[in-house]
């Protein structure tokens, strides 16, 4: 009996570990970008724009790399720049599940379901420590952003 319980507990622990490790990712041109991973130029490619934002008192910079259709923002963790935001700039790209700017609310529901947290126009879907933030105005998607918990 004890052995069975122990095995069940182990299964549960393994399951929990997997769920906690799940994060949103964005696949573009056969490359998959994971929220929380280290940003490297080799993987993300040459950006067309770059900006830095420092905080009021703390060390470290938020770095934003601009690409044709999206921006990637990193946050310093233990000396490494980790990806914590991917923001869509236009409707030329889609999320991995196929949602893009200017799609309808119904498109969002058909792709992501109704398990969201709603605050005003903002719909937030959560996976592990990552969020997919979608703003819907007048029935249409006007903003898509992937965000990793800091």
């Amino acid at each position, binding site marked *: 009996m004890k052995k069975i319980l122990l095995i069940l507990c182990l299964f549960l622990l393994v399951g929990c570990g997997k769920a906690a490790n799940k994060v949103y990712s964005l696949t573009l041109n056969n490359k998959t970008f994971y929220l929380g991973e280290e940003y490297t130029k080799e993987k993300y490619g040459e950006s067309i724009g770059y900006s830095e934002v420092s905080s009021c*008192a703390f060390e470290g910079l938020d770095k934003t790399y601009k690409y044709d259709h999206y921006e990637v923002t990193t946050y310093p963790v233990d000396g490494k720049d980790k990806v914590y935001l991917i923001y869509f700039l236009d409707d030329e790209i889609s999320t991995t599940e196929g949602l893009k700017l200017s799609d309808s609310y119904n498109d969002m529901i058909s792709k992501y379901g109704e398990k969201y947290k709603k605050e005003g126009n903002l719909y937030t879907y959560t996976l592990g420590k990552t969020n997919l933030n979608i703003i819907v105005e007048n029935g249409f998607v006007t*903003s898509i952003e992937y965000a990793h918990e800091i």
Partner: protein
Amino acid sequence: MKKRICIIIIFFLSLFILLNRLVTPKYQTELIEGHMIKEYYQEAKNHEVIFIGDCEVYANFSPIQMYKDYGITSYIRGTSQQLIWQSLEILKETLKYEKPKVIVFNVNSMRYDKPVSEAYNRLTLDNMKWSQEKINMINSSMLEEETFLSYIFPILRYHSRITELTKEDLDYFLNEKNITFNGFLINKNIKPYTSFPEQRRLPSYTFKENVYKYLDEMVKITKNNNIELVLIKAPSIYPYWYDEYEKQIIDYASKNNLHYYNLKKVVDEVGIDYNTDTYDGGLHLNLNGATKLSKYFGKLLQDEFNLTDYRNNESVNSIYQNKILLYNDAIK
């Protein structure tokens, strides 16, 4: 026997107090912004103008420059990411010490309706004197994972620092040095503006009801005390100050008969050059930019609010002459 117990209790209490002091950050060489709130308490309380707000006040205005040019006595009670309910409590606390003619409030914090970060809370609260205002501020600022007790006994929050103590913790255990000039934090570095991330679409551009509630309270307190409440928006390029924000502040100021100055709109008149007058690419002004803005804003304050030129007052002037000597040395 009783005496022995008393001695033991006193010993452990003293040890506890000393340990609390030892592990609390001193904010002298790192995260110096955490020291700013404390410096006000040592000041002679004779200010006609008090600034309250976030980093956009303590980085962008120089009270010593305004004294040099116009004889205005002012102090900046700004802290990093000071939220509006914190500004309100700082205003209330200030009025226990003095009654200025003008309170200048930077409206940037109107965009935040809930606490943002424990780290910023600590910078504002750790060194604040205990008062009803501090208690109110802790209660309204704490994040879910924080406890009130950890503000009373910092060791509960900083116990892990016991193995990470630095020279700063020992050097400034008893005595600390001031890092601002009447609340102005000098930064002489230059980092020209290049670019910022694209302007984000927001789920809502309307300031939240609870934020207005705090602003209403500020208006009420200042009116009851016959103080002019002046709203400003400091001239930063980022974070974006949306047109929708601007309209709401203009409407609010008009409805409540307040002065509102958006200093972003006068950067050319002030002479601010974002190639030379900012230390972080356009978020805050450096010494050069703050000097220009203080000359402009000091003149505006003097013209609009009939402030006293204290350069003709011997006792006040002697205090400021000492400050000016130190300031001139610091800005060399």
